[in-house]
């Protein structure tokens, strides 16, 4: 038997992303859904140091996992993730960026143009 996700909140996000991808033909949402379907031990874990190193000013980054607060962030980036640590959230906002849930990002940029997956 395939176990599947027991958390209804997560299951709802996964099926909403897949439905969005089916309806609009935008592949990135399905890609993120499949990444979220993996075991949580294999989820993306992105520290702010990684964002600082690889993101450039004004980027839109989506993390199919959790953003953690190690390191400093000087760039203004929009980050969407399934989860944020409190310190990561504070530092992103302090740098002038935005933190969103993945579904909020889908609503804001349904076409997904220019969105980068990190992690």
């Amino acid at each position: 038997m395939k176990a599947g996700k027991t958390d209804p909140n997560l299951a709802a996000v996964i099926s909403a992303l897949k439905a969005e991808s089916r309806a609009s033909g935008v592949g990135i949402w399905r890609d993120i859904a499949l990444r979220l379907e993996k075991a949580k031990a294999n989820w993306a874990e992105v520290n702010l140091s990684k964002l600082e190193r690889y993101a450039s000013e004004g980027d839109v980054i989506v993390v199919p996992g959790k953003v953690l607060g190690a390191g400093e962030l000087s760039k203004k980036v929009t980050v969407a993730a399934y989860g944020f640590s409190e310190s990561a959230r504070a530092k992103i906002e302090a740098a002038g960026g935005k933190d969103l849930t993945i579904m909020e990002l889908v609503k804001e940029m349904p076409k997904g143009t220019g969105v980068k997956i990190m992690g």
Partner: protein
Amino acid sequence: MSKVNIYSLSGEVLRTEALPKAFSTQFRPDVIHRAVVAEEANKRQPYGPKPGAGARHSVSTWGKGRGVARVQRLAQGAKAAESPNNVGGRRAHPPRVERDWSKKVNRKEKALAKMSALAATADAEKVRARGHRFKEGLTLPVVIEDRLEGIESTTDVLAALRNVGVSDDIARAKDGIRIRAGRGKMRGRPYRMPRSLLLVVSVHDAAVVKGARNLPGVEVAYADRLNPGLLAPGGMPGRLTVFTESALRKIGEW
């Protein structure tokens, strides 16, 4: 953050306060269910036949050669004994007292289950879905002024709960008392009763502990001793919960 009314003993709204942070925990029915199942498993007592039951004979087998079955027999006669296939013999594969029924839940998961179950008690839709009855328009969880903790008489407790509008649920529990299905009937637990409201108090020697505990289906709990099993009986979240004002304040300290 949602707000709750604080009701007086006569059922009037004294004032309105914001709910503590714990009540905005994410709803995780899967985690709550797992924690409650483990809690119930950990309450189980070991059971099994008495050691040596059905094996207290002196037996030996005649072996082959006498034209009878090679079962083991009593020493002083021909009667077969002790084997599982004999009358009065030991059981073949009995439940064993050594069996470990307990289940482990991770500490943080258990904490999440408690918080999530607590948050579910503030959701009228989930509380109704559990089958509880309460007055329309009541803010959940029900918070009653601290004078409730001092009431010693069950009649007075019931009157106060009636004034606030939650006594229907106690009536539901009373009407729901049924003869238990199965063997439990002959093992000292003949009736089953639905669980009605949970009363959370701030001190464990409050007079209302004695005043309320005999009401059908009511349980009284101390604010620091809540657990998922009390907040979500059977693993189904959303129990009708009544807090006293200072019990709610204790939860605000979490």
